[in-house]
């Protein structure tokens, strides 16, 4: 009887897996393209207050080596490979019209962190989430990125406005000179960087190793169309009007490859 139940559950599970991973015949061909951001230094402007945007704290950042960062966010397809190989605890949840080539969304920080660990072991390389410093450098290439969201020309964003929350296939949004894509799309991306209110902690230098553990803190910076800080257990945000400024449309992530 128990065996019978187990088999029934297994069959049900297999059916759900196969339907979730539908059209994933290319599953084993998924790769994760990286771009190389040259070493250098820049000023990271950290909003002193998300609501008032009264000013920015300036943090001098320098990179002694090339940053290898994902050209795109991690896709549904790649996430499903992780699930198929037992690295991730669930298949992707897609809305109608979304495809396996869209970024995986509705993931909390721990999901993203767990994926980076799995992908590292899968590839036998060392992947992790980017720090905010790395993400902003890759997106704006060291240029002044203050008030990006306010100065942004919304007339160019018809695509986002029309599709609302639904994700678009990778590469549907803007790409910068280095080929860093979709950084102002409708997916906001988890970083390793911890959120603090105090200037001292905002400006403190933390190594990626210090941050690359769930114990480092519980509220992480997300970057994308806007910057925000979100508790690490949140997978999805709800619209909230002015009380929250603009909530993140979707939460996803991309990876950085560490050179050993």
């Amino acid at each position, binding site marked *: 009887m128990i065996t019978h139940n187990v088999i029934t559950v297994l069959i049900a599970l297999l059916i759900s897996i196969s339907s979730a991973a539908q059209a994933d015949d290319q599953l084993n061909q998924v790769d994760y393209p990286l771009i190389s951001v040259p070493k250098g230094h820049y000023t990271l402007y950290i909003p002193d207050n998300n609501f*008032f945007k009264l000013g920015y704290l300036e943090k001098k950042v320098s990179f002694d080596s090339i940053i290898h960062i994902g050209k795109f966010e991690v896709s549904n397809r790649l996430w499903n490979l992780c699930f198929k190989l037992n690295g991730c605890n669930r298949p992707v949840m897609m809305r109608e019209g979304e495809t396996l080539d869209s970024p995986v969304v509705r993931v909390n920080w721990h999901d993203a962190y767990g994926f980076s660990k799995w992908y590292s072991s899968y590839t036998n390389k060392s992947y992790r989430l980017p720090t905010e410093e790395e993400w902003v450098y890759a997106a704006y290439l060291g240029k002044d990125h203050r008030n990006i969201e306010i100065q942004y020309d919304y007339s160019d964003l018809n695509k986002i406005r029309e599709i609302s929350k639904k994700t678009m296939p990778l590469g549907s949004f803007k790409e910068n000179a280095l080929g860093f894509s979709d950084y102002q799309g409708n997916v906001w991306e988890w970083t390793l960087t911890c959120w603090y209110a105090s200037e001292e902690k905002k400006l403190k230098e933390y190594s990626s190793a210090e941050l690359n553990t769930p114990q480092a803190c519980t509220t992480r910076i997300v970057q994308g169309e806007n910057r925000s800080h979100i*508790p690490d257990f949140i997978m999805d945000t709800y*619209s909230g009007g002015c*009380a*929250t400024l*603009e909530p993140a449309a979707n939460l996803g992530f991309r990876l950085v490859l560490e050179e050993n």
Partner: protein
Amino acid sequence: MKRNLHKICQYLTAMILLVGFSLTVQAQTDISKLPRITQELVNPPMLPKHDQVSTGQKVVQVRMVIEEKKMIIDDLGTEVWAFAYNGSVPGPMIVAHQGDYIELTLVNKSKNSMVHNIDFHASTGALGGGALTDIAPGEEVVLRFKATKSGVFVYHCAPGGIMIPWHVIHGMSGAITVLPKEGLSDGKGNKLTYDRAYYIGEQDYYIPKDENGNYKKYATPAAGMADELEVMKTLTPTHIVFNGKVGALTDKNALKAKVGETVLILHAQANRDTRPHLIGGHGDYVWERGSFANAPKVDLETWFIAGGSAGAALYTFKQPGIYAYVNHNLIEAVLKGATAHFDVEGKWNDDLMTQVVKPRPIQQ
């Protein structure tokens, strides 16, 4: 639409800032010269020591430490992760006078797991201070605001989006009383005073159940969130209680008073409508919507506290005995927990009520 809203938000922010800056220029009060008092906050239902009539404009300094801790909320041992201002649900009452400055040091304990803040309905600007008080565990912030309006006002945590209701239904609200400088009045030029004041914070909880119908327990606050959101969306609380848990203010915990004493009852509900009723008594003077600038309503049987507000009622006890003070949706009072008791000492007044004939068989 969302974009437009965003733009509107930004314009509004800019306008608020402009207005804020011009006001700063006009501000005349030299706050550094005002006397400062440190108000020792106490656990509900008590109020901190205070004067009913102001002795002059002042800065009221308070310190609140936020604690995330498990609390038992009923006789079944049902647990909630309380996000507790100063360790209590509701958070402590602050008392000041109109025109005073409140200077709050808000501390987010290092062992907490979340960002918290505070939104004072009594304050003006910056989302009630919420936008200036976001702090991570291990941080503190000092906020000062001017109590421009008199009344009883709710404060609550509002850390953005989905976190707002979720924090509030974990007990993260309290209240502040801003008395008129000259004290309370009936709106016809007559002063009103009280011998005692009690503060009742009404709390709705949404505790998920397992497949056997037992309330679930969670190792961390975050672990319960997904389940709790589903219960929250039904808008049907599993518990509606006064001062954090079922029975916090009943029986041996009853609120004390004496015949002839005038009691001020402050009632706050940060999330949900309620309708206090003193069984066997009345509201002699009721500031139903909390504002002391409005003349109180008189002689009410039941009064209405809108969700997200606090109200005040003044009553002089005329008979001894146990009074139940309830949310007079009686299902909420009896089945969900929203009941308190007043235990009143004194001499019975036959004129007001008497049992003319003891119960007996029906007489033909």
